[in-house]
């Protein structure tokens, strides 16, 4: 590695006002877009590509990376404040973020999310800078068997996110997997649970409308019920936010979660086809399993928010690794970025490290700037965002409803998706009412299609010999870790159940 060139490239980018301005504009747009349920970072990047036509390469990439990083953080704002993930990558942030808001800690939750996103992004960018060729090589050895086992590894987290009852969590998960199979079979194109005339469902239920429905619409229906019954209290955030960044005590508590989340996020982000939505759940499950107090996870602790937010921003660095090293986009955003590179006459790939090394280093630097810009925008906005929870619930709920339904429509410009969103909303409300956890359904909606597609591909390649999977060391590593996670999560869950039973016995005795 040419450290002199690396340093000069970083300096050049950090001192270029056009890059700084464009990245800041991108980050601002990304945070705002990400905070609207249904609007993803991918949409933001795709929308702004035409605006980058007339710019030089690095300011253009800075603008797009700003949206990417900003969008990743923006998704957590609505996840924390209104229990609705703005983007799929923020889905796991609701598990601890929203309970923090309900405990009057919305400001702390947002600052932890922002700080963790920033650290995750920076760690991801550093890993990308120093290890991209090595990681890219490892990531490209992923075939269907390895991807199938990665999905299984992701699914092993279900027990950790099942809440009070593992059995109810497993029912939710299998039901979620079953929902994923509605529509055309991914290998053979055979209609399942529908007829071929039901064109709106041929590709199955759209994920984002389902996500908005299960969280936003279900929250509104449940909230209205509680208000009318007189059970809903007006939420307030920390009376005064003295600092926009978490204090040293909190940072000391969350740094292991940030570090592990960032590494998990970067690694998963580097695997083509796997992204932030998977990384956040894997990171949450791994961090909860490693915690000394797993019973506190899900009740509203900063560690939960830190583990997911560092993972989704770590993904931004990870996703750039196969793009720059191999010319293979790791996710939808990097696919758009690939287009932007080609548009400027640069072909990412192994030769880029030989012929265009200064550009590679400038892109690394632009990602750093993008994370800094996200931090600036986040710091400036945290006081404003926290005011949202102090808005009267009688006004907030209807507003959440109409904004969410618009998000559900906008994703495919299809009224059917609004119906799907409402259908999942009613279903989510009933599931919430009877304490069937929704997070496992969300996880399976993300991982189910990946699991089935790769299982079918593997079986067809290996002529039905499932045992062939034991010949892959990567697949076996994932399987081994998944088994360990399941055993450890079950042990943890037993501990949690014992603590809860003891608490309820003490309460009833007193």
């Amino acid at each position, binding site marked *: 590695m040419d450290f002199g060139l690396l340093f000069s490239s970083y300096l050049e980018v950090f001192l270029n006002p056009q890059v700084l301005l464009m990245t800041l504009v991108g980050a601002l747009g990304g945070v705002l877009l990400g905070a609207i349920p249904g609007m993803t970072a991918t949409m933001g990047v795709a929308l702004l590509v035409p605006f980058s036509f007339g710019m030089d390469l690095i300011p253009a990439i800075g603008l797009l990376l700003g949206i990417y990083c900003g969008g990743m953080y923006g998704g957590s704002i609505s996840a924390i404040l209104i229990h609705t993930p703005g983007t799929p990558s923020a889905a796991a942030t609701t598990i601890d973020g929203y309970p923090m808001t309900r405990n009057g800690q919305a400001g702390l939750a947002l600052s932890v999310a922002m700080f963790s996103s920033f650290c995750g992004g920076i760690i991801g960018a550093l890993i990308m800078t120093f290890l991209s060729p090595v990681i890219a090589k490892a990531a490209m050895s992923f075939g269907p068997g390895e991807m199938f086992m990665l999905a299984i590894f992701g699914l092993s987290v279900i027990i950790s996110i099942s809440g009070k009852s593992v*059995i109810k969590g497993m029912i939710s998960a299998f039901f979620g997997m079953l929902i994923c199979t509605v529509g055309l079979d991914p290998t053979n194109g055979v209609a399942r649970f529908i007829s071929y005339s039901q064109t709106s469902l041929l590709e199955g239920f759209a994920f984002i409308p389902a996500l908005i429905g299960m969280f936003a619409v279900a929250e509104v229906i449940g909230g209205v019920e509680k*208000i009318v019954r007189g059970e809903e209290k007006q939420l307030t955030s920390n009376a005064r936010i003295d600092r926009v960044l978490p204090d040293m005590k909190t940072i000391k508590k969350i740094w292991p979660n940030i570090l592990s989340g960032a590494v998990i996020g970067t690694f998963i982000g580097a695997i083509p086809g796997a992204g932030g939505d998977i990384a956040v759940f894997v990171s949450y499950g791994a961090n909860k399993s490693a915690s000394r107090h797993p019973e506190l996870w899900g009740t509203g602790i900063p560690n939960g928010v830190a583990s997911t937010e560092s993972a989704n921003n770590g993904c931004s660095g990870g996703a750039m690794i196969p793009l720059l090293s191999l010319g293979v986009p790791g996710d939808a955003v990097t696919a758009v970025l690939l287009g932007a590179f080609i548009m400027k006459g640069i072909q990412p790939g192994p030769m880029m490290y030989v012929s265009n090394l200064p550009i590679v280093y400038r892109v690394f630097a632009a990602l750093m700037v993008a994370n800094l810009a996200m931090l600036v925008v986040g710091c400036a906005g945290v006081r404003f965002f926290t005011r949202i929870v102090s808005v009267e619930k009688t006004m907030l709920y209807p507003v959440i409803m109409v904004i969410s339904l618009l998000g559900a429509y906008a994703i495919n410009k299809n009224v059917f998706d609004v119906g799907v969103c409402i259908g999942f909303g*009613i279903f989510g409300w009933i599931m919430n009412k009877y304490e069937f956890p929704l997070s496992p359904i969300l996880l399976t909606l993300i991982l189910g299609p990946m699991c089935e597609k790769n299982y079918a591909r593997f079986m*067809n390649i290996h002529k039905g010999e499932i045992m062939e999977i034991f010949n892959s060391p990567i697949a076996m590593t994932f399987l081994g870790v998944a088994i360990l996670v399941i055993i450890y999560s079950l042990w943890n869950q037993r501990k949690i159940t014992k603590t809860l039973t003891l608490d309820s016995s003490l309460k009833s005795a007193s």
Partner: protein
Amino acid sequence: MKNKFNTVAFSNLIGSVVFLLIGIVSWIMSTRFQTVKGNYVQPADFPQIMIIGLVFFAAILFIISLLKLINMKDDDPEAAPAPVLNPVKDKGMQASLIVIVICIAYVALFSLLGYVIVSALACLIIMFLIGKRNWKVMISVSILVPLGMWLLFYTLLKVNIPLGPLAFLRDIVDMIF
């Protein structure tokens, strides 16, 4: 001993029966899926594995809930009262059902009346339902939020959203911007 039919254990029992029924119906449907010759994974294979898992865990929940109902103690967490689902007895439940009806009407009227009108009406009715009575604020929020969101999506994000009778707004905005 309190009424066992009004406990979490009983609601879990009903829940498990619902998921068992879903599993059985899905299994019957999956046996009718078309098969593909020469393929190692048939279209019905993966759904059937999921159905087996669903039925297995639903059956466990059924057995546990049944045993709990038979040997229930007052301090069991499952002896807690179950959430109400009867709209006749509970005002909160009535309100939830009204919101669901509003949502269904929202989808039905979305293309006809357009986003702004249908959202303004939904917003206004939900606000009234949950006790807001400041009409000035109610009307302004109900109109300005959907209008603002439409404007944002139309001008900045270039997403065309149905406007129904208010389609003329597009011409006005096009003239201004």
